């Protein structure tokens, strides 16, 4: 049974990879057109500066926009394919996890996986006048949003030693009648005590998309914002202040973590990817490192 499901998934992935290849070629064509348009535009603006007609300029600009939009459309399709492939893969992972009952992965591997998954989180580039959707960058989730099984969340769990702890976790199930999530700590060895069952209030979904700072800076936490962020090389969220928001879609947040061991009360800057930076909630009582 799992074999056939795997085969189906593999086939689906193969189809998409093929389509992706075609799309890449299509993108190249569109890029060529765009470049032609831009060259025409540049030549026109340089050649006859004296007799430039604004109407002609405008029509050239408009043509360039149309070409770019076409290019953008194809790129969007290609990225969509990549996202689909990842979703299929993730689905398989969750299925096999349920089937095989917890494969154990060492912490180091987990950290690597977390970084890569954060880097490959789909990029959101808004069209003109479009508002970033919920869970894109710093945009909070809908009040009624329920995380799906397998989604990464920040969970506020009670720790016997030092009170509440905000950990990185994965949703196992959600019970709509009680409004409670069943979650797994991302670190398997922590789950030996059993799964955590937490109310919705204590589970914060992580962003599902990255915001593009160049087009949608409003979807980022501005400098000076108090946030909760995954401390590098750990799977716990801690309070931090945004020192510098990312400048490009590949950049990370520059954060100063609250740390009493430093005389200023803050750690030197650390870099954290968009996915693991969430809004700080006042009621989140938790200890700092």
């Amino acid at each position, binding site marked *: 049974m799992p074999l056939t499901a795997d085969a189906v998934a593999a086939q689906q992935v193969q189809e998409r990879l093929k389509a*992706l290849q075609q799309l890449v070629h299509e993108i190249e064509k569109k890029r060529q057109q765009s470049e032609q348009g831009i060259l025409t535009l540049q030549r026109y603006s340089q050649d006859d500066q004296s007799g430039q007609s604004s109407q002609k300029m405008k029509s050239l600009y408009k043509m360039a926009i149309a070409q770019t939009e076409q290019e953008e459309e194809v790129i969007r399709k290609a990225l969509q394919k990549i996202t689909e492939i990842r979703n299929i893969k993730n689905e398989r992972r969750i299925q096999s996890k349920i089937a095989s009952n917890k494969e154990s992965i060492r912490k180091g591997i987990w950290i690597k996986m977390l970084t890569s998954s954060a880097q490959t989180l789909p990029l959101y580039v808004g069209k003109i006048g479009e508002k970033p959707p919920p869970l894109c960058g710093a945009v909070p989730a809908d009040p009624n949003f329920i995380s799906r099984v397998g989604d990464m969340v920040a969970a506020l769990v009670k720790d016997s030693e030092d009170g509440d702890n905000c950990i990185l976790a994965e949703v196992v199930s959600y019970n709509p009648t009680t409004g409670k999530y069943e979650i797994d700590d991302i670190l398997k060895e922590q789950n030996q005590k059993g799964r955590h069952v937490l109310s919705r209030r204590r589970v914060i979904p992580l962003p599902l998309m990255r915001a593009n700072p160049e087009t949608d800076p409003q979807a980022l936490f501005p400098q000076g914002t108090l946030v909760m962020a995954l401390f590098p090389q750990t799977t716990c969220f801690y309070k931090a202040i945004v020192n510098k928001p990312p*400048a490009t879609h590949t950049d990370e947040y520059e954060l100063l973590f609250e740390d009493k061991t430093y005389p200023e009360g803050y750690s030197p800057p650390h870099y954290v990817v968009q996915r693991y930076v969430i809004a700080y909630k006042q009621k989140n009582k938790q200890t700092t490192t």
Partner: protein
Amino acid sequence: MDVPKRSSFTIPKINVKYNGKLKEILSSTKAKSEVQDLSNIPFIKQSDSIRLLPKYSAILGKSADDGVSMDDLDHLQQDLEKLYSTSAIRIRYFLSEIGEVDRNDEGPDRKAHDKTSLKRKRPDEKPKFKDAKNGMRVKKKTVGFPAKLIDDFLQEIPKVTLPKNDNSDKFWASIEPFCSSVTKDDVASLDSIIQEFSKEIDIKIPEVGDHYANGWSEEIINDEQNLGKSPSKKGAPTSDIKKNGLHAMLETFSSPQTQRLLNSLPKNGENEREPNKLKSTEFGKFRTSSAGQKVGRCLDRRLKKELMEQGIITMEDLAKNMPEDEILNEITKCQQELATVNEYNIQELNKLKSIVMNDLRSSEMKEQLDKVDKQVLELYNKIIVARKTAQQVEGDDFDKVVFTEQVTRDFEGQADALLKQQIELNHEINGLTDRDMIY
């Protein structure tokens, strides 16, 4: 000049980390030639693909059969995102440039154009570009040009075109139908209206039926008769039974006080010569004071019935005593009022009709007068022509005098006739308008 600049400008779009340094290069080249702001369009040249988009180029180089492998995915995604982001920025850039062109249509100022391009166009995007470190496209000097900005905005404002003011035309067009001259159609419509109003109004007021309360009391009487309680049922009109009947009636009054009063009445009544008559009047009084309207009605009916059976009261008497029907009165009054109004309306309509007829006649006159006027003009022209011909035919003096005399005489006759006609018509028209004034 073109080549080095372009390459230098395309790189920073992708590797923004070098921004600081490149910004300087950029601004320095800018300073040399103000016009070349198009050289920094954010795009990745195809020739730079291999360097900037390695995975993308690699996949592009592969044959279709090889496809994309899973390992390539992460890097390909990054490359595609680079392209994606760049094209999104490019669209925004072009849009702002178009806005710039629009703005500069009136008085193109290249310098201002260069320096304020993005910020002036879409002020809401200002923080976007700043935050994005793409500020190198947007020159930071922008801040130094607020005056220019305000100037431009001021120039924009008076552009509003005023709507055409054709209100007076509209007004006269709306008035026109009321000022046009009267036609025969108007007379016809007036005739039809008058005819309609002159029709006899023949609405019959239906007879007033029984009051609903009468129906009820009848039912009650019938019920009682069926039960054999009422003595009148037997049809033996003896005074004894009558008295019993009266007593039975009295029992229907619930209040002990009224009962006592009523009890005393029949006793007194027996002394009278016409006890029943008296009783009926007395009962009439009690009826009004009795507790329920229904009971009163019932009593009334029963009394009447009995009295009629006795032969004391006839139907005619009853009819006389019937109270006046207020509603009927009101209806007839309204009908009368309406009739008078209608009469007045017809009068007015007739008046109007005669005026219209008058008007028609006068417009006819006017037409005739116009005709005459034309004839007069024609005659005048003829006279002039005749005079000219007479003058032209020179050389024969004698002929000329005779000719003119004859012609003039002819013309004089015609002119006199026309003038007379004109005067007559004018007189008539004046008479008509005078008559109009009467109304």
